[in-house]
């Protein structure tokens, strides 16, 4: 009994730690996801390289989703800007990067500029397209921004898809192109590979001294021989650092007079105006910053992560995935955005990809039926096998939407504020609490975030 009490005590302590520390919360969630996918990999009898690859994927998708959910949270959670053209702004970012950096001799040809120029250029272009979108739309009511952004997103995708721009010549005689429906695959690979390989474009090239050391370490400890999964894992970790930097940037934006005005715009724009705030300027700046970050996310995900850019990757469903992640995390909370991104990436995006294999490994079952009604119907009679069979039958994208739908219905009914949306993150550069006398920073009430 006393050990029970001890355990409950520890549990309460842990819960309090999670309430207090965002870092602990995020790290705990990540630990849980790593464990989950470690188990998944073990069930599927992966070797160590395979396990590292799975965990690398967890890191990568968590990071890219977190990044883009953070950007959307700036738009929607903070300023109430209903941007449903996320996929389009990501596309502008990564396409610009690819077109700037692809070699002039490539197919399609590019400008052959350094990667750094490509990244900055991609963000800049996304911000610029954001500006062009926002200028007319922000003067109108919020719903119009939604309509305009979803339209612009599709226009962007179809433009990149169009054969007309597959290759084209600028007035100055420079030829470049979008590659049309097949996109661009011929642009510099992930710059991180330069850490490992003397020739970053080839995994077979000589390794650098650092590369030799790290590969040697993995070989001696895990017995993994010079595998690309190590590079992937490193990239995931670098992305995690970038997420942290963007989080810090956005936390600063939020905890400032600027963020306060954004919150006011979200709540009641007329009031913000009546208090002398030029709300259009705030909205445009915010929209451009968010779009630049979406462009960056595109570069880091489809650009250096996937290594190839094609229009199909930027269909509107990508935008809806991001919105679902923001709803899961709780609009308005940056930490919630990271958690929402992590939950979506791991449980709704990655896990369904492994489910068929897991089912195959654990239950012996036929891959049928092939329609949803036949799969769901027998559940009434207590038979789950047809549903599992249906999952096996390569119907996962459809199933993912079912999961997402069920989750959305549950969230909207039971927890509309998301995981962390209930928290008030005070928009000020200082702790606004104080003692009623004197200017002591620590007032008698202490914390600010309860009630």
């Amino acid at each position, binding site marked *: 009994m006393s050990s029970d009490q001890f355990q409950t005590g520890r549990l309460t302590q842990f819960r309090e730690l999670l309430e207090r520390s965002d870092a602990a919360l995020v790290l705990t969630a990540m630990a849980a996801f790593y464990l989950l996918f470690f188990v998944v990999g073990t069930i599927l009898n992966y070797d160590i390289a395979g396990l590292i690859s799975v965990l690398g994927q967890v890191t990568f998708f968590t990071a890219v989703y977190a990044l883009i959910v953070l950007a959307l949270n700036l738009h929607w959670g903070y300023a109430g800007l209903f941007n449903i053209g996320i996929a389009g702004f990501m596309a502008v970012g990564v396409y610009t990067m690819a077109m700037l950096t692809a070699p002039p001799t490539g197919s399609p040809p590019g400008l052959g500029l350094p990667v750094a120029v490509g990244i900055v250029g991609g963000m800049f272009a996304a911000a610029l397209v954001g500006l062009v979108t926002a200028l007319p739309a922000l003067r109108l009511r919020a719903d119009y921004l939604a309509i305009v952004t979803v339209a612009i997103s599709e226009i962007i995708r179809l433009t990149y898809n169009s054969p007309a721009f597959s290759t084209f010549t600028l007035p100055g005689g420079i030829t470049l192109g979008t590659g049309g429906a097949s996109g661009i695959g011929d642009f510099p690979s992930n710059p991180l590979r330069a850490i490992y390989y003397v020739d970053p474009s080839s995994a077979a090239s000589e390794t650098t001294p650092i590369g030799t050391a790290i590969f040697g370490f993995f070989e001696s400890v895990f017995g993994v021989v010079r595998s690309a999964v190590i590079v992937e894992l490193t990239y995931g970790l670098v992305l995690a650092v970038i997420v942290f930097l963007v989080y810090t940037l956005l936390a600063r934006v939020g905890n400032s007079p600027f963020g306060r005005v954004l919150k*006011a715009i979200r*709540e009641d724009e007329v009031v913000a105006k009546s208090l002398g*705030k030029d709300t259009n300027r705030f909205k445009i700046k915010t929209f451009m910053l968010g779009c630049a970050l979406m462009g960056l996310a595109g570069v880091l995900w489809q650009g250096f992560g996937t290594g190839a850019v094609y229009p199909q990757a930027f269909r509107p469903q990508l935008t809806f995935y991001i919105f679902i992640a923001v709803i899961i995390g709780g609009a308005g909370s940056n930490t919630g955005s990271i958690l929402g991104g992590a939950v979506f990436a791991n449980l709704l995006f990655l896990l369904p990809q492994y489910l068929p294999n897991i089912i195959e490994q654990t239950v012996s079952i036929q891959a049928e039926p092939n329609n949803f009604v036949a799969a769901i119907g027998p559940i009434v009679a207590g038979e789950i096998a047809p549903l599992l069979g249906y999952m096996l039958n390569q119907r996962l994208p459809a199933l993912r939407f079912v999961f997402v739908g069920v989750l959305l219905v549950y969230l909207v009914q039971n927890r509309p504020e998301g995981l962390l949306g209930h928290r008030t993150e005070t928009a000020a550069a*200082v702790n606004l609490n*104080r003692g009623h006398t004197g200017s002591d920073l620590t007032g008698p009430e202490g914390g*600010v975030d309860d*009630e």
Partner: protein
Amino acid sequence: MSSGSAVDSVDEDPAGDTAGEPPLRVENLRKEFGGITAVDGASFEVADESLTGLIGPNGAGKSTTFNCITGVQEPTDGAVYFNGTDIAGLAPNAIATRGLVRTFQIARELAEMTVLENLMLAPQRQQGEALYRSVLPPFRNGVVEEETELREAVWESLEFFEIDHLAEEQAGNLSGGQRKLLELARALMTDPDMLLLDEPFAGVNPTLEAKLLDRINQLRAEEGLTFLLVEHDMDIIMEHCDPVIVMHQGQLLAEGRPEAIRTNERVVDAYFGEQQ
């Protein structure tokens, strides 16, 4: 506010204090909504440092007049001079930064922001409203410093309005009267030259109401603020406002000292004739 010294002064209208020019002069103001004329050629002045009352039966056009003066709605025709400049048709924020600030008839608190945040929002021209200053390390210190100063002013204001115990409450959780107080406190935090108050005392208890009226008179005398007040409580109007402007069916019906208004036959007809 006397305590608002942390806030940069907004007095920079070169045309201000022109001899004899009243802070607010409305000329032939018209506002039509489709076929309905809500304000039909109203002209009046508000004298410097006065507490002018604006009354009239429901639908007289008082709130529309407020909206047209403060830019929330664009007048169909006419001119609004504030400190000598025509501000008709300017954006509400451009008018507010000139020092003409309003409150709303139905309090518009920022519901999902705390009371503290609501007030911290109000001061004009905060350094940290520039994105780069809020984000970049070299400027961030200045922002923090300014926030610390503003915080002092905000807490003093909260104490004066007796809502300091609600400081960290979400504004949406406040009662109707508390919201009115919050809105008045917020408007004052902008350090205005002139305030347009739309029924500021609705739902405020009599003790606090008296205190607020004292404060208004103090701000007039010590800081030269001017007030234009829409109010349905005739006792407040007759006791505290001078002069009183009466609107009826979008037009000016009468203007003068409260005693004169009280006995003005047209006013009595418009008001009590309609009500009985």
